[in-house]
């Protein structure tokens, strides 16, 4: 029924947008918000034509571009009309000239000479890179000065502007932290003009504190729920023990930290295992080190981050909640360079440089001293050893217009307890991928092919502890091809397909030492997607499409498929106000088996949703408003509702061994998020607040799940002091997470032998009497961190010093209480940390 409503809604919107696009311009001028349809009275007497055009433009609040050369010298015009649109007035003014009026958008016009046919246009495509390294600059802004229209670069640093009237233009590209650059473009009708922008890093003081996506050139971008973060943003935040990509996400409203001791995060009332992390489009199943304390992805290898809090586009799949897309750097294309960094936990190094017409990047990180981790775990020693390494080979022109990237990533964690009474753990990720991004030389067509393998292995080794031994592995091999075509109208069409084969293995062992594979069998999924971006009007953006899954992984058979329709829209009311709406159906087939009542799931195995359960689905509905009060003050508000069905949940009423481990539950989450950014250089203030509710139903029981966090408030103040000094202060507040109180104990008779049912006293064991599930809340969490950093240039070497003070006022934030003793265990106390990085 929900799917039906969603389909109906999308169809209605499509019909409405189609009807709108078919309406004759001006036919219904009164009562619309569009400036072109507003009518005015104009009275002009013997005014130079150039001034007359500007007068009309100003009065009707539209922009008109023209070259003075196209009008006869000293030509004067008069005009007296009533109830006319700007377009009609301009057309009247230029009636007796050798010019035509071209509508670029609803409120933008160009007056050109008549011999240039208005329907004949060209396109500009640009590639934006860092001039020192050749690294792509994703999400930078490009615009045509004369037309005041533009686009932003994609995650590969490429932009395209279509429907440009022939002529010579100035194209300007800007990106935070870099010098703005202008290039001349001679646009020829029916041709694609290629520009290559190499931006020079701003050597004075960089305003990296802004989010790079905040100044998108496209006013109708369908970017609801998307956050784009540059690595430079990350480095300005208090680092804690390690700079961590996932912890930086936790400053965003709607994203809730699971605590100091874990980098896992909840997004909009969903558990952490409903977030998918893509590294170069490859899913990484266990992107954590040290029992989940830190992200296993070294920020040094990352170029940019796109984070979708929900309602993500149709080109992505496999997550009920959020997608974190990480794109790695290509490596320095011009010269060899290296970096080394040491923190209180790890040492890391990277090497990059040109190779055979392309570039390479090698990164590596290794823990060397885990003494500091005892602060995370109540002074308990954590003998963990971990590493991660990556390699990337990038060839930007292996074929004409073809960029090929080969990528590999490995990480491993090992927890070897000295005492045989404690369990040991091992985890490892292996990723290997090939990305081929092809640009058509003749048309605005992009083709991207990804072929990858992602493997995860984990093992819990029992030793003499009570931990159940488990072994888990997942092997995911996929091939996907995506095509994007950009029409002259600016509309875009995306189509693609994906073939994915996943093999999962989850071996558990009982007390008798007997092992059993309880995972689903290997499965194959074949799916297609098609998406249309309706961007032809500057104040309307509509992005709609669907994914069609022909099979599901658990069966791999035809007839078990499903649809995932999506819709994202933007309606810009004015230059400063945009309304946004999104809806979509999302599916997750690869899940984890974990006990959600446990605060830390040390071992969280991944496997395919078994065939006895349908795949988990989520219906997202999101609406938002973006407000831009000034160049420096931006605010946005979003509301969301997320309806989860067939939510794979641990069966807490498993009686027999042959009973299923999982049951299909349902969930609902909803909330409101507010974000404000005030960035008068050299300061920046960020405030994010969210109010959210989550509930869950499984086995007929309705309850608040552990990730039901009510209030969340994050504030950050950053100050670029100058001369390489940088300071920031952050304060985070979360209302306490739910927990279940213990109301006492009773004796439970453990019947080990039904032949002997007398004298039970030696077989009585305590059984905790629980209160209403998750009806109570832990105390609120709050923490203030300070950070100061200094960059120094010493000839050929750059040095970066960083000092952070974590939990400045030593707040005792509760981590958990021990169920056996009632002892309270707190999270991080006041903790100063430091790191130093050298770059050659």
């Amino acid at each position, binding site marked *: 029924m929900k799917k039906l409503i969603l389909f109906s809604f999308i169809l209605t919107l499509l019909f409405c947008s189609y009807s709108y696009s078919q309406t004759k311009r001006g036919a219904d001028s009164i009562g619309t918000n569009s400036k072109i349809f507003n009518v005015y009275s104009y009275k002009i007497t013997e005014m130079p034509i150039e001034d007359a055009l500007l007068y009309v433009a100003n009065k009707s609040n539209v922009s008109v571009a023209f070259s003075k050369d196209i009008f006869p010298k000293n030509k004067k015009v008069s005009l007296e009309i009533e109830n006319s649109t700007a377009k009609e007035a301009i057309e009247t003014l230029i009636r007796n000239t050798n010019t035509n009026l071209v509508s670029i958008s609803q409120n933008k016009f160009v007056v050109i000479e008549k011999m240039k046919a208005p329907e004949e246009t060209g396109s500009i495509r640009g590639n934006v890179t860092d001039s020192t390294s050749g690294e792509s600059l994703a999400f930078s802004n490009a615009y045509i000065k004369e037309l005041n229209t533009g686009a932003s670069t994609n995650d590969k640093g490429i932009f395209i502007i279509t429907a440009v009237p022939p002529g010579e233009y100035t194209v300007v590209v800007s990106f935070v932290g870099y010098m703005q650059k202008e290039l001349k473009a001679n646009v020829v009708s029916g041709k694609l003009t290629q520009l290559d922008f190499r931006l020079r890093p701003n050597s004075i003081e960089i305003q990296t504190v802004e989010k790079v996506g905040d100044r998108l050139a496209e006013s109708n971008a369908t970017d609801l729920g998307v956050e784009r973060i540059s690595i430079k943003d990350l480095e300005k935040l208090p680092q804690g023990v390690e700079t961590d990509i996932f912890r930086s996400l936790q400053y965003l409203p709607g994203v809730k930290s699971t605590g100091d001791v874990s980098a896992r995060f909840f997004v909009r009332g969903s558990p952490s295992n409903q977030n998918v992390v893509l590294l170069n489009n490859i899913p990484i199943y266990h992107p954590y080190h040290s029992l989940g304390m830190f992200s296993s992805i070294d920020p040094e290898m990352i170029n940019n981050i796109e984070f979708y809090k929900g309602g993500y586009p149709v080109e992505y799949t496999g997550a009920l909640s959020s997608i974190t897309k990480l794109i790695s750097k290509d490596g320095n294309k011009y010269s060899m360079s290296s970096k080394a960094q040491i923190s209180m936990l790890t040492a890391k190094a990277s090497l990059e440089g040109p190779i055979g017409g392309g570039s390479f990047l090698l990164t590596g990180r290794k823990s060397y001293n885990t003494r500091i981790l005892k602060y995370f775990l109540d002074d308990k020693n954590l003998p963990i050893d971990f590493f991660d390494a990556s390699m990337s080979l990038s060839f930007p022109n292996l074929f004409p217009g073809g960029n090929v990237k080969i990528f590999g990533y490995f990480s491993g964690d090992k927890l070897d307890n000295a005492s045989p009474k404690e369990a040991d753990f091992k985890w490892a990720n292996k990723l290997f991928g090939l990305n081929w991004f092809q640009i058509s030389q003749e048309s605005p067509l992009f083709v991207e092919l990804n072929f990858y393998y992602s493997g995860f292995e984990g093992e819990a080794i029992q030793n003499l502890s009570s931990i159940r031994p488990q072994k888990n592995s997942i092997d995911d091999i996929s091939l996907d091809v995506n095509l994007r075509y950009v029409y002259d109208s600016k509309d875009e069409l995306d189509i693609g397909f994906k073939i994915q084969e996943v093999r999962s293995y989850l071996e558990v062992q*009982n007390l008798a030492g007997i092992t059993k594979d309880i995972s689903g069998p290997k499965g194959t999924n074949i799916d297609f997607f098609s998406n249309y971006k309706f961007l032809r009007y500057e104040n309307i953006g509509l992005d709609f499409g669907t994914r069609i899954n022909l099979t599901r992984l658990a069966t791999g058979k035809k007839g078990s498929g499903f649809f995932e329709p999506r819709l994202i829209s933007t309606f810009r009311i004015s230059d400063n106000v945009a309304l946004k709406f999104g809806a979509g159906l999302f599916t997750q087939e690869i899940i984890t088996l974990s006990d959600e009542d446990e605060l830390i799931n040390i071992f969280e195995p991944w496997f395919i949703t078994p065939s006895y359960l349908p795949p988990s689905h989520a219906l997202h509905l999101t609406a938002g408003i973006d407000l831009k009060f000034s160049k420096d003050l931006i605010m946005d508000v979003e509301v969301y509702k997320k309806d989860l069905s067939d939510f794979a949940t641990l069966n807490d009423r*498993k*009686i027999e*061994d042959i009973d299923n481990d999982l049951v299909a539950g349902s969930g609902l989450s909803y909330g409101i998020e507010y974000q404000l950014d005030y960035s008068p250089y050299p300061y920046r203030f960020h405030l994010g607040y969210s109010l959210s509710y989550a509930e869950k139903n499984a086995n007929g029981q309705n309850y608040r799940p552990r990730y039901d966090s009510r209030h969340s*408030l994050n504030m950050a103040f950053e100050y670029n002091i100058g001369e390489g000094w940088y300071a920031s202060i952050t304060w985070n507040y979360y209302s306490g997470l739910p927990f279940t109180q213990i109301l006492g104990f009773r004796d439970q*008779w453990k019947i080990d032998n039904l032949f002997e049912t007398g004298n039970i006293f030696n077989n009585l064991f305590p059984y905790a009497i629980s209160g209403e599930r998750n009806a109570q809340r832990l105390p609120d969490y709050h923490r203030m961190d300070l950070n100061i950093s200094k960059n120094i240039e010493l000839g050929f070497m750059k040095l970066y010093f960083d000092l952070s003070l974590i939990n400045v006022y030593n707040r005792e934030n509760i981590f958990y209480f021990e169920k056996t003793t009632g002892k309270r265990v707190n999270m991080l106390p006041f903790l100063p940390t430091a790191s130093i990085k050298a770059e050659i």
Partner: protein
Amino acid sequence: MKNMILSFILLSFGFLFISCDDTFSPKGEFQEGYTLYCVLDGNSSHQEAYLLRNYNPEGLNAEEYNLDRTVTGAQIKISNGSTELQFDDTTEFNESLGYSVSYYKIENFIPSAFLNQTVTITAQTPDGKLLTGNTNIDTKHINFSASTKKELPYDVSDSLRILFLSDGLFQFTPFLLINYREIINGDTSYNKKEVPFDYAETSSGEISIYPDYKLRNRYSYPIANIAYELKKIANAKNPADRIKILNLTLGILQVTNPLDIYYKTYKTFSDGFSIKTQEPNITNIQNANGIFAFKSISSINILFRRDWNNYFANLALEQL
């Protein structure tokens, strides 16, 4: 900008102030209550019931709580509607616990007296609470099939098949024990070696790794598995000539609901492949927790035929 910094700091401390309420306890208000366990034994005239009260240890360390929580002074009765029997309140010193415990017992009561009837247990606690529970005494009179061999031949391609003469399927778990006698230093001990249940082939298909209760009316044990267990006795005991193999005990154990579920839940939790952290609570006692159920065992003895001696020469098959 100074104002902004000031506002930031004030706001932070404002929130800090309002969120300073750190009162929190992992323990809620103590829930008073009782647990009653009583499994009537169909093979005995001695029956016992156990009444325990909830307890509230210091902190949450229940493992270290070593005070007596058995209840004395309660009135516990069973009744079939017409006949009522009262358990005797008994207190004894328990050596392993190190203190006296209370329980309730009835002597000279064989549950088959209430055959095919519903029996109710009531427990009136000293503070006036009334706990109740019901169970059925519906043990079937088991007749093992005449096809069951009285003497088991050594034929490893065959099985020891058991078929019941009763009508339809009924719920039970089978067991098979090898009875043997061991003489050490002149002392004789009588022992049993179980042929594991997972060797059994039953009419209900898949079985658990531990005894489970299923609706069935037949089952069989491959003779090869019995031989395998016999070999294990021979290999484990040194010298093996001190061992005298006696016979096999073939039997079934019947229990009534919800004892079977209670048992399965515990075994699944402790021996199965579950990853749960807390087992579900199973009870059929009103106003309390616990179990009131009935169990009975039916069995026959089967001898090994002479040809087993050819393969287990080092063991003395006493019945030969």
